């Protein structure tokens, strides 16, 4: 077994490069590894192309910190508060600098990652017809369905292949094999389309735990470059069966990021002044304990015996 465990600090340092196309969580509002968002900000990565359907407030944070050169996705904001203030400032006033925005819808970025994952030359879809997304993003091409007897327009979506996909999961082993349950959005497609995958695991387990249930694997270990053990590494996003969503945290972020000074103060408090993921968890303290899911609602057993 090739050991892939390392600190998130090392994983971001070695695997995320300036200018990379990066996915941080591809399940919309759950399992977003905000710990990686913060670490990328701390390390001052530049000119990243953030790829996601919706990654709650993660992309907005990175934009405000000056890490982002382009957004390739369907939505940037804050699910609790609506608008993303940093996204607005960048798009409207080039603060902290200008952004390239590549507009997608959730389904079209989904099919773009699907095509990237599984080597399709492109994906023809019936969506975004009639939408200005076709006009504002030159990546799409229009075509006519050759199987239709009538003139039926379709939109061709080219593959998107991230350089790095960083995903939150409930548990992983040292070789990068991992289990994920609950809605997964585009997490599997994003990982399999990516050149490098970083797994942010709430828990590290023995290999036998993962191999006991190969149908629950999100990304097989041979596609994973690094595994980082970060308990509650998705905070303030939820993680099914492990952590509640911290909606108050999102609301506070929304209120404080309304102007640049407020955002900078928030950033100092929650990112720069804490020592990595452990410091962040320590700062959350009791608040984190209150978000921990303590109950049991266990999946019915499944037997894989072969004799």
């Amino acid at each position, binding site marked *: 077994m090739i050991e892939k465990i390392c600190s998130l600090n090392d994983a971001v340092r070695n695997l995320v490069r300036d200018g990379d196309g990066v996915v941080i969580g591809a399940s919309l509002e759950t399992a977003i590894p905000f710990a990686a968002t913060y670490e990328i900000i701390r390390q001052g990565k530049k000119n990243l192309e953030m790829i996601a359907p919706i990654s709650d407030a993660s992309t907005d944070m990175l934009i405000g910190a000056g890490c982002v050169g382009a957004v390739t996705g369907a939505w940037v904001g804050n699910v609790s508060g609506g608008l993303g203030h940093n996204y607005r400032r960048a798009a409207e006033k080039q603060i902290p600098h200008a952004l390239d925005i590549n507009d997608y819808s959730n389904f079209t970025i989904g099919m773009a990652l699907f095509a990237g994952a599984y080597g399709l030359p492109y994906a023809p879809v019936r969506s975004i017809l009639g939408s200005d997304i076709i006009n504002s993003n030159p990546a799409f091409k229009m075509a006519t369905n050759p199987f239709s007897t009538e003139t039926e327009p379709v939109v061709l979506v080219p593959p998107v292949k991230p350089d790095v996909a960083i995903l939150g999961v409930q548990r992983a082993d040292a070789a990068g094999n991992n289990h994920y349950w609950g809605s997964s959005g585009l997490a599997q497609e994003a990982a399999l389309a990516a050149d490098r995958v970083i797994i942010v695991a709430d828990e590290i387990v023995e290999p036998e735990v993962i191999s006991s249930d190969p149908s629950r694997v999100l990304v097989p270990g041979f596609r994973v470059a690094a595994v980082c053990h970060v308990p509650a590494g998705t905070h303030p996003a939820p993680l099914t069966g492990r952590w509640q969503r911290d909606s108050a945290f999102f609301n506070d972020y929304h209120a404080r990021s309304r102007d640049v000074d407020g955002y900078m103060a928030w950033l100092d408090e929650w990112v720069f002044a804490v020592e990595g993921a452990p410091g962040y968890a320590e700062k959350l303290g009791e608040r984190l304990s209150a978000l921990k899911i303590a109950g049991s*609602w266990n999946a019915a057993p499944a037997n894989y015996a072969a004799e």
Partner: protein
Amino acid sequence: MADYSTQELMIIAAAREIRDGELVFVGMRLPITAYGVARLTHAPNAVGMFEGGVVRDAPAEETLYTMCDPANQRNAAWTTGLIQVMGHLQAGRVDTGFIGGAEIDKWGNINTSYIGGHEDVQVKLPGSGGAADIAAMSRRLIAIMNHEKRRLVERVSYITSPGYIDGEGGRAKAGIAAGGPAAVITDKAVLRPHGPANELHLSSVHPGHTADEVIENTGWELKTAPGMTETPAPGEAEMTALHQVDRQGFWR
């Protein structure tokens, strides 16, 4: 008459748009609760889909803040990926879809991307999310938004989510086979498309508001639909269901 907030009235008006046995693309926020109300009143067999990858055949047992909250995963009928659920939209299997909006025009086109347009951005909104997909591919679209003159405009500056585009035959010209907005539920009224051009007309006015006030707060010359009426106030059964779904009174 029951005691209810404007948002509760909007939720109940939205719930009434769901028919029994339908496949409903639920979306975010207010429609999550509307699906729960419909399920507990007139639509016990409606199935709800959430684009993160959740399918439910019963409402969640706690108030949801987002569609991906742990309470929406637990006891779901299916937790899967985005393509699996949005693929049902593209396959034409979704009866009713819900979306919100920042700006809508008289053809029901919705902008959640660029106020001022793509070339002259005045306000950068978060973008489509799943809205463009839901608007293009649901059989029937329900939009929910606040009724302000600056939001209900003659022509949106960017179509994120297509309504009837430019009126009669607009969807067909764009290659979208059917569907389109069936109702726009605001905090003052319900608008519905009328006539072959599918222009949005005033269909019902919420209790406590007047047609004149609604017209005044609309950015195009809003016409009234034949048989325009008052939006029925929430009934007792509806309010009971709503209180059951929104236990913490989030929408009160």
